[in-house]
């Protein structure tokens, strides 16, 4: 563990002794202890297969579907143990955006944004729905581009627009935390730049945790960075410090491109 940060003062998300294993002998994530600072962007870096996506998915319990995956440890959100929350409550508070844009292909842009309410059978007034859709799309700077074609299918949008639509879908629940799993790896540089700018804007309202394969991206937009290696959290600190003055030798090797 890094000497840079021992703990974060009142973290919005507190992960304690988290281990995830796909089968009994091998841990994909091993004994991770970390606190996430509110209204900041935290990047999770590391080579392929180091467990960064697994860690991210453990936070909103995406593993729950696969009975062979075992998760141990405690995660608290705003001081409350998440294991006491139902899936739907937890995922309303912690939204997620994936590597590839995945709007629901049969739904219109409008329905995609409101999908979380619709599919969960949460009934709200039409005026409220309209407001949520407009606000969420404005949050992701997509409103002006799509306001005249809300009834069109989401799959007609470009890749970058689709990804922003997916972020809007996650934001529609007004979550505390947004998890992003390499959100720009399937996008071109221009769309990537737009998403990065968007994330910097979004951190005023939301806490963002992002897995990225791209070190330059982490250094550009994140406030805190984690470096993981073979399932372990090697180093965690303010991005600036971690990039300029890594404490652990492995981190330094990774950052200087000795391995990837």
């Amino acid at each position, binding site marked *: 563990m890094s000497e840079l940060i021992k703990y974060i003062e009142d973290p919005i998300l507190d992960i304690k002794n988290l281990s995830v294993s796909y089968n009994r002998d091998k841990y994909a994530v091993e004994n991770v202890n970390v606190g996430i600072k509110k209204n900041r962007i935290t990047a999770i870096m590391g080579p392929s297969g180091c467990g960064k996506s697994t860690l991210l998915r453990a936070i909103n319990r995406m593993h729950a579907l696969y009975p062979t995956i075992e998760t141990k440890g405690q995660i608290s959100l705003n001081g409350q143990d998440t294991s006491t929350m139902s899936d739907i409550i937890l995922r309303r508070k912690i939204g997620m955006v*994936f590597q590839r844009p995945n709007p629901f292909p049969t739904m219109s842009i409008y329905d995609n944004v409101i999908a979380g309410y619709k599919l969960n059978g949460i009934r709200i007034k039409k005026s409220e729905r309209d407001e949520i859709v407009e606000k969420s799309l404005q949050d992701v700077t997509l409103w002006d581009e799509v306001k005249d074609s809300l009834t069109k299918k989401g799959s007609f949008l470009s890749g970058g627009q689709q990804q922003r639509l997916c972020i809007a879908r996650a934001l529609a629940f007004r979550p505390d935390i947004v998890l992003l799993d390499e959100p720009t790896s399937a996008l071109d540089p221009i769309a990537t730049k737009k998403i990065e700018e968007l994330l910097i804007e979004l951190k005023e309202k939301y806490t963002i945790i992002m897995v990225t394969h791209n070190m330059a991206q982490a250094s550009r937009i994140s406030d805190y960075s984690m470096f993981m290696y073979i399932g372990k959290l090697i180093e965690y600190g303010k991005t600036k410090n971690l990039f300029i003055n890594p404490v652990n030798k492995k981190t330094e090797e990774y950052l200087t491109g000795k391995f990837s």
Partner: protein
Amino acid sequence: MISLIIKTKKYLKGINTRILKNQIFAGVVFVFSFITISPIVLIIYKLISKGYKQINLAFFTEIAPDTYEAMIALGNNKIIPGGILNGITGTLLMVALASIIAIPIGLLIGIFLYENNKKKYANIVRDITDIIQGVPSIVLGLIAYFWVVKGITHGFSALAGSFALGVMMLPLIIRSTEETLKMIPETIKEAGLALGVPYHKIILRVLIPTGFSGLLTGILLAISRIIGETAPLMLTALGSMGVNYNIEKPTSAVPLLIWEFYNDPNMVDLIWSSSLILMIFVLILNLISKHIIAKKNN
């Protein structure tokens, strides 16, 4: 220098033989593909040329004539009166009933196989599905005879016919459902999960709508597969002279009528027109499902 020229010449000769081989192969492929499509063209030509005379409004609105009426018409060199209304309504009734039996069960089993892809029990179900697909339709008719005709309706009935047809539809729907769901990217499912949507709702509200065209295609192809079945209906629905909507009573069907017309020397002319109608049914169903697939791929 000279050796280079010789080499080039040899090389060019090689190219010519290769081009020739290629042309021969392309020719063979063309000939065989032509041989494959020619039967269907000949069938349709024969059906239209022999059957068009009998097709008029009455053919769709009147029930099958009796042999005496047909004989008189033939003697006067007129077209045979009456139509195949009892066959059309019977076919529609039994296909609808078979669909009501087979579609929900088929979809559910398909979803089950997709969800439990690698489990042992799923493999057994999958194997049995394949076996059902291979069972001769007359055998299914026999089973329906013993289970439904003797056991439930105590007499030949539309229900028994629908049961046999429904069992024939099952494997096709199960397989197409499973294959369709497999084609849907995992990420769509994850998108639903990340919104906290319960799993059964993801299946009902996300996966099924996303794969709807594929599921519909499977159902249409299954219907077009059973609409012309004759053998199982002979042992179950038997046939009927009039229009029947009672599922516990014997019922006619277009393929059954064709068989009856075949066995009556006075009504042979009706075979062609009835076959033409049946063929058009099947063609329309196939074209619709082709259209759906093409639309989906765009």
